[in-house]
């Protein structure tokens, strides 16, 4: 009885206020005539301020510092132990302290979105995180991957029993990284989603909390990473793909031997990432015409691959455009209006409450779909081109006389140094020099 009475009074009061003062306060705030009660203010929440801006400059400074140090330790000092310690520091700072955000890998998307969306703000720190490792790679090779990237570091730590992956499999699996890069760029450019961040397998570890599926995914990567060195870096990382191309033209890069290669083959299996290339064997003269024919065939295959890729990409774009919230909403509204579904979602009720005409929503959604269609063609052509080049590259003859670090694939971890006998000679000389200096000073 009490209950129904309340409801009755309440609804009456509600409707009265509704009709009279809709949009203003339904229930006027009190004046407190009997007591001199003071209302608390909401402004107290503004005391809780975001991280101060100075810290982002510190982040950028730490990034630049670790990049300089990493390059020095790898190329000049040639010390795996020092690189390892720096890697631990980066894992603690960029990973566990900064919780993995923002990282250069994800910054690809911010950069792309800010090109396509003028209203999107690209802050100084994000820009610096995107560009600095690229510039360093152009000079020193992938020293970012070796000791600065927290994602690389966490995988490097769990690498226990590396097994070699066959080169053809390695190349094939790497195609996935190109697809991932293309998809990330396409979805960021259309403002749909940041998939690199969404499916980052290690960020849940850095935060020590996260969705179960991502934790499991991360765990899988770490389990595989115990046997296959750095699987994310080699087969998935979209930023690694960009660095890979840049390091091919870098000014300085890792050399296994500090001196001249004596082809002792001791370093042959030293690299857990399969990034040591062997000297080429002399090709028999008879295979020339065959390989020329093969090359010609592959070159002819290229346009076919481009077209096939583009066609497949544009086909995919229809379902991919559902990653965009506007397209999702438009589809839902359409289904509800056509009577294909009877219930409503939070999103559709909210949309109807705004009173926006559905045609406007449909137009917005189809504009995004169109963009996605073009983007899908470009994306597909890109993947087709990469696949074509992957077929062509092994068919082209190269001449190498030494064991050397693979130009693109070397992650500059410094593991191979100690396998080279010439390196031991260098270290011994260094030690002797030091001893001499010590003797003199004594």
């Amino acid at each position, binding site marked *: 009885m009490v209950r129904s009475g309340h409801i009755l009074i309440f609804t009456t009061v509600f409707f009265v206020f509704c009709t009279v003062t809709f949009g203003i306060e339904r229930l006027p*705030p009190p004046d407190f005539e009997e007591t001199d009660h003071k209302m608390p203010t*909401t402004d107290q*929440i503004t005391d809780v301020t975001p991280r101060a801006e100075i810290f982002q400059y510190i982040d950028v400074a730490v990034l630049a510092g670790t990049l300089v140090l990493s390059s020095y330790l790898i190329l000049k000092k040639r010390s795996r132990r020092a690189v390892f310690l720096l890697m631990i520091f980066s894992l603690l700072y960029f990973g566990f302290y900064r919780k993995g955000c923002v990282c250069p890998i994800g910054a690809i998307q911010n950069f792309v979105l800010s090109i396509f969306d003028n209203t999107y703000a690209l802050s100084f720190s994000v820009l610096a995180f995107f560009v600095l490792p690229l510039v360093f790679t152009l000079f020193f090779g992938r020293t970012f991957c070796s000791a600065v990237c927290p994602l690389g570091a966490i995988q490097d730590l769990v690498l226990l029993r590396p097994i070699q992956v066959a080169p053809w499999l390695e190349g094939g699996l790497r195609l996935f990284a190109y697809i991932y890069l293309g998809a990330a760029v396409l979805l960021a450019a259309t403002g749909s989603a940041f998939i690199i961040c969404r499916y980052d397998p290690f960020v849940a570890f850095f935060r020590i909390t996260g969705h179960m599926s991502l934790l499991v995914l991360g765990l899988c990567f770490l389990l595989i990473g115990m046997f296959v060195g750095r699987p994310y870096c080699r087969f998935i990382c979209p930023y690694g793909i960009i660095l890979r191309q840049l390091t091919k033209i870098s000014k300085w890069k890792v050399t296994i031997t500090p001196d001249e290669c004596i082809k002792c083959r001791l370093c042959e299996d030293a690299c857990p990432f399969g990034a040591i290339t062997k000297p080429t064997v002399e090709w028999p003269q008879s295979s020339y015409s065959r390989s020329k024919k093969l090359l010609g065939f592959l070159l002819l295959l290229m346009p076919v691959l481009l077209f096939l890729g583009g066609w497949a990409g544009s086909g995919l774009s229809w379902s991919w455009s559902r990653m965009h919230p506007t397209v999702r909403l438009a589809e839902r509204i359409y289904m509800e209006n056509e009577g294909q579904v009877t219930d409503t979602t939070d999103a559709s009720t909210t949309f109807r409450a705004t009173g926006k005409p559905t045609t406007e929503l449909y137009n917005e959604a189809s504009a995004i779909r169109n963009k996605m269609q073009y983007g899908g063609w470009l994306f597909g052509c890109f993947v087709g081109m990469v696949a074509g080049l992957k077929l062509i590259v092994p068919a082209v003859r190269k001449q190498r006389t030494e064991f050397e670090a693979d130009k693109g694939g070397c992650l500059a971890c410094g593991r191979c140094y100690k396998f080279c006998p010439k390196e031991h000679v260098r270290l011994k000389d260094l030690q002797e020099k030091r001893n001499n200096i010590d003797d003199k000073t004594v």
Partner: protein
Amino acid sequence: MQINKINRRTFFKNGLWSFCLAGFAAIAAFFSIKKRKPNTVWQLDPHICVACGNCATYCVLEESAVKCVHAHAMCGYCDLCTGFFNPEPRALDTGAENQLCPTGAIKRTFVEDPYYEYIIDKALCIGCGKCVKGCNAFGNGSLFMQVQHDRCLNCNECSIAAACPSQAYSRVPVDKPYILKRAEHA
């Protein structure tokens, strides 16, 4: 012939190298001078928010960075507060079975007849938005959600923003990190 070949290759390599470096310099210069924008943080607009409850579940943090805020100047100080009580309360008291809030984060205190004051205990609030929904439905809408910037990790892609049905989330300038509801008479 051999020397020529090497020269050509290094020439192309150097050209490409310089081109890349110039490109990065141009990108850095263009974005830091022409398109310089202030830093931003995630925030939700309480005027668009529909209090669906996704904030409590989609945040990457176990305890969401989004919590309820009370604009007391808008509050009606009602005895029968629809943000505090269940739709059908057994009695108008602070018994747990009568409360909407699953964690009992709203403190109800008597001020003067017939007014009661409602204060959010932020430490207990999980950002489920049940009270916000109740208050918006029948009350003044003085309860609303805000991202608390001492907790928010400022993820590059906010998982709540991606799941928000009303697209209430956006990046706001860091010097104005809150979007508050204010009393219209004030």
